[in-house]
């Protein structure tokens, strides 16, 4: 009886070890085929290229402003006087940059040059003067304009393709996190809410400060909080 139990114990031990061997292979195959591969990107600080949008009115004549020192139009000319909606966007814009102005209710676009920008402390916006290219314009026409080479400084810029928006309009990203546990080192997607300060063409500036080593997962339909993922190897 005792020998039978011993024999059975031997068999169980051998079967157990064999099973663990087989499962080692099975687990490897499953991990390679079922854990989704994701692309990652990192954040960085720097300048974010943005479009500075504004509105104004076409005017004709000379222009002077006490805040402009000697930068005054001395000859009669067509120009647009208006404001930029986002004052921070003009901080790093030099005078002379191209501005695209929609006239005739957006039917035609003409080019202009930014010739003056003045900060209005009372209203807290940027006043701008845009010199229009040669042509005939109707004085008093309201226009909208865009300066495409504006930029803002962001402490944390993240790629737009990593940002999600939920039903309530909140933005979030998925961060790739290493998880050290009994199951070894696995990487998971962790949902993290972010506050977008400024949207750029390809990147967005966010309020949160992410470490440069933090990896953001590129948008992927299957992602959910806590999902095991594998980082795409380059």
């Amino acid at each position: 009886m005792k020998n039978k139990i011993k024999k059975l114990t031997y068999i169980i031990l051998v079967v157990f070890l064999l099973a663990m061997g087989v499962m080692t292979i099975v687990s490897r195959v499953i991990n390679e085929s079922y854990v989704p591969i994701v692309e990652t990107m990192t954040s960085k600080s720097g300048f974010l290229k943005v479009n500075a949008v504004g509105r104004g009115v076409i005017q004709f004549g000379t222009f002077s402003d006490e805040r402009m020192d000697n930068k005054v139009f001395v000859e009669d000319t067509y120009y647009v006087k208006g404001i930029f909606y986002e004052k921070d966007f003009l901080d790093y814009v030099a005078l002379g940059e191209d501005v695209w102005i929609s006239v005739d209710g957006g039917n035609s676009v003409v080019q202009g040059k930014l010739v003056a920008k003045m900060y209005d402390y009372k209203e807290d916006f940027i006043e701008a003067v845009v010199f229009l290219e040669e042509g005939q314009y109707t004085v008093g026409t309201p226009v909208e304009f865009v300066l495409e080479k504006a930029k803002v400084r962001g402490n944390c810029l993240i790629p737009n393709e990593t940002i999600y928006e939920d039903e309530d309009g909140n933005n979030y990203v998925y961060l790739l996190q290493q998880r050290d546990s009994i199951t070894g080192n696995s990487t998971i997607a962790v949902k993290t809410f972010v506050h977008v300060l400024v949207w750029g063409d390809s990147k967005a500036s966010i309020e949160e400060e992410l470490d440069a080593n933090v990896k953001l997962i590129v948008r992927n339909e299957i992602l959910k909080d806590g999902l095991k993922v594998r980082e795409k190897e380059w």
Partner: protein
Amino acid sequence: MSRKLIHFGMAILVLIILAPIYITFVHSFMGMREIMLDIGGILGGGDQMVSLPLLPSYPTLRNYKELLLYAESFYRMFWNSFLQSVPTVLGQVLVAAPAAFVMAKYNFRGKRILFWIYLAVMLMPFQVLMVSEYLILKNLSVINTHLAIILPGIFGTYPVFILMKVFLNIPDDVMEAARLDGANTTTLLWKIGVPIGKGGIVSVAVLDFLECINSIEAPLVFIRDKSLLPLSLFFPAISSENVGEVFAASIIIMIPAVLVFFLGDEYLETGLQAFQVKS
């Protein structure tokens, strides 16, 4: 009456000893929500009451599924435990048996001093020998390899001490008779020492295996590469996220240890008896 009291007291002790195993077993079949309801207070560090149910309310195999199917690294650590334990045990028996045999059955100059040195080293905790062992292993260029665990294990003094006591049970008359028949030391060891001391050798092997597979300090100090760590070192890394998988892993790693114990329990008894009773 007093006998019944003793039995009752022993039953209580057995229950106390078995309780952690039972808790581990029950929780390995619970979902995360149920586990957190039971022991969330401990894991979260809050003041929530801890409850220990006898059975899971909503039994699930999810923890085992996650562990066995998706935790590829679990297997690596599992095999690391074996890669470190099995050679250590085999090496220990091969080294300790001849050493113990000579110490037990031969007289030579300095034998007593050597015995006391063995005894002193055996009584020293790992922390005392850690630095010197580290320096030796570093000079041998085996730090951060499996050998860093295996080599110090092989040359442990504890098995020599036990086997020495086992070999002391061999009657001198038998040794003398074999010698008269022309047996040399190696023959004496293999033909007389090993068969008679089989119980002790197996008991040493079983005890060493259990010690190796549960070892924490040595891998912690001598191994840095996570891919070489044994399973024992990952158990303390319990967090509220993976506690269910940890319970399941604890049960799985317990299986070989229990089976090895059952295989050697008979010898374990005779070995320990031999340790106590001299012929």
